[in-house]
């Protein structure tokens, strides 16, 4: 992973000191709430339902065991309260869909101390919230995927540095998210981002980016519009500067629901693209405009640890020694191909009964860090699917890792299956949510606790958001569940056939609603009815998403209506 320079390190410490100054003025009554809010947001501090929430950036998903141990320390020493239900005592973190980790119970008065502890391990909360360029996200398999065309991580790091405290773009009309993919398979949902970047080679073998602009979820789901098929990598910061400058000057600021760049792109169409291109040309014509020099790319590339030497392959016949069915199942779902011979990438599932998707206690953080130290050169990845991944596992050690991961509760063999669902924290913790996500996720996990059944259902993306802000990416779920508020009570809208843009899911598209909202206690039945419809209608080998696309929403709607109870009359 990227190793901080002394400059990087001084920078996050300076940021922590600046935040301490702001916090002290706030606590002393010199910086009122309204003025402090945007400042704390740009350091990752929200004020949530129970307490402040801190969102820590894990840039493009790379995390070291040392960092995870420090996060465990923060969870243990700072993220707790003495009163409330067992689930309200804190001591845990939540991995979000944007490669961030969130704490829910740290008192604001201790916020500056926590930022200091994060800086000690080269971490921060810079621009994890606020109307600015957010944490750059990428493929959890970046640098190790066999289908990779160009390793996106050095470009992600250059983007991270460029966007960090960019003075011109700190107060945009609204938040701004950039995702980067460097593989044939899009595992970063690029089409759903304000800017989606895809690295590839042009006809003469040069490296550049296909750029799409204006994707986003929320109230109006929009797929990003391709605006340039090939921007040479040397010019990519200039092109992005042009996009963000046009957005900063012309994006709407009168209506928060129309302030994302997607609204500007939709409203202006080709005029937007023309304005970006004019600005891009003007910048390129300016002798003061800095392109990325080759030496700078190489300098950043060299800050990434070199890959380990090829590992020995398992001895012939070793694999044939009667593998346990449970091991085979885990190896099928949680172990992934690697570009280096003798290596595998292994997902540590954070989707298990009894804990909300993506949640990790302090002890589990220590446990995952120990696994990374023992099996993966001390490195982990955070995926947008809210799981952890070990990127450098030697194939000969898979069996030992499986045993150790089982011990730690990380070996649920459900990656890509129904219970490997994405869910936001929802109304239990989030002040924005209309409805709770965690009990819905728990009820579905409980309903589908039979592994044989889960494996028979096969690949499926189930995504749950507690409100239209779409942190749980419900729009892109093959089955999407959205919490809505009607008359002060919790209801859930269900969609089918949404797609994140991966090969499995097909072109990115928002799912289709299958009827009026359901009551909370109907949701597991609805999911079951939708799944039963698929199982009844599927053709040999046909996966859920393909069947859902072929059948359209109607059969699912009928099946879901048939299990309504409290909402039967309304339907």
């Amino acid at each position, binding site marked *: 992973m990227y190793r901080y320079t002394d400059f990087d390190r001084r920078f996050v410490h300076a940021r922590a000191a600046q935040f301490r100054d702001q916090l002290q003025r706030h606590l002393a009554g010199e910086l009122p709430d309204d003025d402090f809010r945007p400042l704390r947001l740009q350091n990752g501090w929200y004020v949530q339902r129970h307490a402040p929430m801190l969102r820590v950036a894990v840039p493009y998903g790379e995390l070291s065991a040392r960092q995870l141990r420090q996060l465990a320390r923060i969870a243990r020493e700072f993220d707790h309260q003495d009163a409330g239900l067992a689930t309200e005592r804190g001591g845990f973190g939540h991995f979000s869909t944007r490669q961030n980790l969130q704490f829910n119970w740290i008192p604001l008065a201790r916020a500056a101390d926590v930022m200091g502890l994060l800086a000690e391990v080269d971490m921060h909360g810079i621009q994890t919230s606020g109307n600015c360029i957010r944490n750059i996200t990428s493929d959890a398999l970046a640098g190790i995927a066999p289908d990779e065309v160009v390793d996106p991580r050095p470009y992600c790091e250059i983007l991270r540095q460029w966007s960090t405290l960019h003075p011109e773009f700190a107060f945009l009309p609204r938040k701004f998210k950039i995702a980067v993919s460097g593989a044939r398979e899009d595992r970063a949902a690029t089409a759903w981002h304000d800017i989606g970047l895809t690295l590839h080679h042009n006809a003469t073998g040069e490296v550049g980016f296909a750029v799409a602009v204006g994707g986003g979820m929320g109230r109006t789901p929009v797929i990003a519009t391709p605006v340039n098929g090939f921007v040479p990598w040397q010019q990519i910061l200039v092109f992005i500067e042009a996009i963000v*400058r046009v957005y900063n*000057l012309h994006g709407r600021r009168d209506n928060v629901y129309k302030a994302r760049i997607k609204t500007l792109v939709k409203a202006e169409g080709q005029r937007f693209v023309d304005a970006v291109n004019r600005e891009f040309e003007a910048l390129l014509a300016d002798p003061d405009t800095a392109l990325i020099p080759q030496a700078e790319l190489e300098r950043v590339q060299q800050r990434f640890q070199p890959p380990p030497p090829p590992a020995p392959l398992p001895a012939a016949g070793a694999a044939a020694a009667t593998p346990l069915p449970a091991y085979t199942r885990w190896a099928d779902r949680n172990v992934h191909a690697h570009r280096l011979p003798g290596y595998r990438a292994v997902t540590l599932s954070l989707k298990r009964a009894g804990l909300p998707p993506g949640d990790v206690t302090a002890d589990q953080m220590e446990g995952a860090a120990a696994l990374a130290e023992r099996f993966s050169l001390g490195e982990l990845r955070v995926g947008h699917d809210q799981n952890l991944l070990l990127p450098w596992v030697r194939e000969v050690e898979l069996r030992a890792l499986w045993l150790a991961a089982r011990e730690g509760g990380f070996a649920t063999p459900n990656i890509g299956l129904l219970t490997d669902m994405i869910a936001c924290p929802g109304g239990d913790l989030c002040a924005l949510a209309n409805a709770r996500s965690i009990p819905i996720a728990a009820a579905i996990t409980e309903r589908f606790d039979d592994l044989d059944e889960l494996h028979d259902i096969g690949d499926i993306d189930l995504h749950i958001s507690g409100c239209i802000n779409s942190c749980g990416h419900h729009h892109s779920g093959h089955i999407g569940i959205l919490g809505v508020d009607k008359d002060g009570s919790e209801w859930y809208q269900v969609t089918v056939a949404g797609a994140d843009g991966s090969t499995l899911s097909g072109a990115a598209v928002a799912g289709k609603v299958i009827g009026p909202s359901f009551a909370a206690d109907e949701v597991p039945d609805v999911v079951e009815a939708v799944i039963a419809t698929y199982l009844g209608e599927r053709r040999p080998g046909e996966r859920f998403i393909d069947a859902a696309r072929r059948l359209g929403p109607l059969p699912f709607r009928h099946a879901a209506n048939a299990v309504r109870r409290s909402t039967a009359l309304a339907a």
Partner: protein
Amino acid sequence: MEFLDLDAALPEGTLVLDNTDDVLGRAEEIARHAAVALRFPKWTDGRAYSQAVLLRGRLRHPGRVIATGEVLADMLPLLRRCGFDGVQLRADQSLQAAQRALGYFDSHYQTAPGERRSIHEIGLPR
């Protein structure tokens, strides 16, 4: 960075622009003025940062660029790096906090307008 008295008039010959004004479209008018004041109607409305960058970077405006309106102490590092060299702070703001805010970072990851420094030089450890 010069701190201008909120109660005093802006320096003579200052052109005041709204943050919806097209800076490039008014290049000739701007060239006739020694100073340009850019307005922050709300401090979280960041359009004037881009206007300042265009003034300095594209138009090579050599004169003063003054931030007016709702200007907070904590905006100063951003203002300075976008090319502002004068501010009228909101009445309740502390000059001390503003000066302190300018001191936290000695260098940055981006090129400021008018600087001939590549990202390479900027990224190098110093």
